[in-house]
């Protein structure tokens, strides 16, 4: 059996470095501030491009997301790790995806972006990361008390291919209906004319970087939620080294590229309502922990045939649509009109899931 380099300590450090550096480069090439990569924001932009919400400033099919899934698929096929599976409480995972996204959009970023915001000098990210750790800590308490969503089953190969095919379909749509300068619509796709959705690196570069990261992250099992969870649950620091590497290399890249601007006020796509920066990420962290992976990891799992992870991602995209249609998402001005209520509802739903889904596994 060949040893998987990426699964070792240096492997995960390399993957963190690759993500951090590429994020800096993507920002330099056009992606929004401190948002070289953000899985939550980018899925939200995809929801917008498809017209699932109609907020004109966040509409763009982000090729990075497509690349993450297809890169992971290529890695999984290459190393014979493509394992089509599903059936572990899909509806619960969908709901967790919905509220994970809502929590992330109250803070304005997924865990990757929280690290990138920190690496770009945004002090508000510290509060978000503390919230994330707090949410994961609550999730760990549930795990310690027997919480789990049950076993998945092996299934048809084509089931595992469905989500990567959806991503391929989105890519085809981008080629069929390319962005037209000055137009907010091309065929069936919506394109932002201003705001974060209008800021993006060239399609081909975004796609290739997405493929590279997807490939490497599948091999390394890179997961930001897992980093905190394994630290709290087992005192394991393996995944955490990858996370620290991401932050440090993104910081270095930002210094080199002149993208480091320390402070709390006026940070790009961020607000300073700290209670809700914290609470939003508590909700997101708890939902990630209950679902078994951060948004990035769920994409990579989807690429290697995990249908339950794919359902979580679809939940996130749906959650993004709700977040913008209902005024739950924050903006640089602060939380949305119903953001606080949504966080409260989300926490109640997550606690319901955590307390009631304790299937007794007869594994021993």
């Amino acid at each position, binding site marked *: 059996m060949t040893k998987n380099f990426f699964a070792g300590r240096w492997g995960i450090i390399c993957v963190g470095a690759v993500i951090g550096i590429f994020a800096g480069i993507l920002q330099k090439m056009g992606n929004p501030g401190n948002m070289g990569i953000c899985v939550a924001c980018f899925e939200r932009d995809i929801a917008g491009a498809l017209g699932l919400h109609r907020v004109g400033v966040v509409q763009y099919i982000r090729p990075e997301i497509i690349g993450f899934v297809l890169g992971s698929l290529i890695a999984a096929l290459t190393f014979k790790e493509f394992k089509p599976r599903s059936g572990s409480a899909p509806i619960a995972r969908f709901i967790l995806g919905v509220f994970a996204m809502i929590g992330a959009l109250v803070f304005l970023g997924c865990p990757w972006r929280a690290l990138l915001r920190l690496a770009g000098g945004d002090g508000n990210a510290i509060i978000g990361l503390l919230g994330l750790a707090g949410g994961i800590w609550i999730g760990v308490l549930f795990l310690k008390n027997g919480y789990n969503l049950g076993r*998945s*089953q092996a299934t048809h190969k084509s089931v595992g291919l469905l989500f990567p095919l959806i991503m391929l379909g989105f890519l085809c749509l981008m080629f069929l209906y390319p962005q037209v300068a000055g137009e907010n619509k091309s065929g069936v796709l919506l394109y932002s004319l201003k705001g974060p959705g209008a800021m993006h690196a060239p399609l081909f570069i975004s796609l290739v970087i997405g493929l590279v990261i997807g490939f490497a992250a599948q091999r390394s099992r890179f997961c930001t939620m897992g980093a905190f969870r394994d630290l709290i649950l*087992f005192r394991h620091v393996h995944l955490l080294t990858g996370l620290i590497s991401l932050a440090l290399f993104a910081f270095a890249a930002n210094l080199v590229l002149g993208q480091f601007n320390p402070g709390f006020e006026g940070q790009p796509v961020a607000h300073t309502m700290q209670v809700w920066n914290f609470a939003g990420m508590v909700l997101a962290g708890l939902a990630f922990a209950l679902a*078994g*992976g951060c948004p990035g990891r769920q994409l990579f799992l989807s690429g290697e045939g995990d249908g339950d992870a794919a359902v979580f991602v679809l939940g996130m995209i749906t959650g993004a649509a709700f977040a913008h249609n209902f005024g739950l998402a924050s903006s640089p001005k602060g939380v949305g009109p119903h953001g606080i209520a949504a966080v409260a509802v989300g926490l109640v739903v997550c606690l319901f899931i955590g307390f009631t889904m304790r299937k007794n596994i*007869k*594994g*021993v």
Partner: protein
Amino acid sequence: MSITIDARGLSCPQPVLMFMEAVKSGNESTIIVLVDTDASKENVSRAAESKKYTVTDIQQQGDEYQITIAKD
């Protein structure tokens, strides 16, 4: 004494949690863990090493792995 843990179909961190429970609860000299993803295989192996156990054998049967872990 040996004990077998069936963690097939369970996503992380469940397989590691089940392994840790076996470590805590028993005096088994050998723990056999069944998993069906490479990530679980690596996680359980890593957990074993951190608990001063040694992975003595990994058998692949189709899409599944049988990991044999012995106390040092």
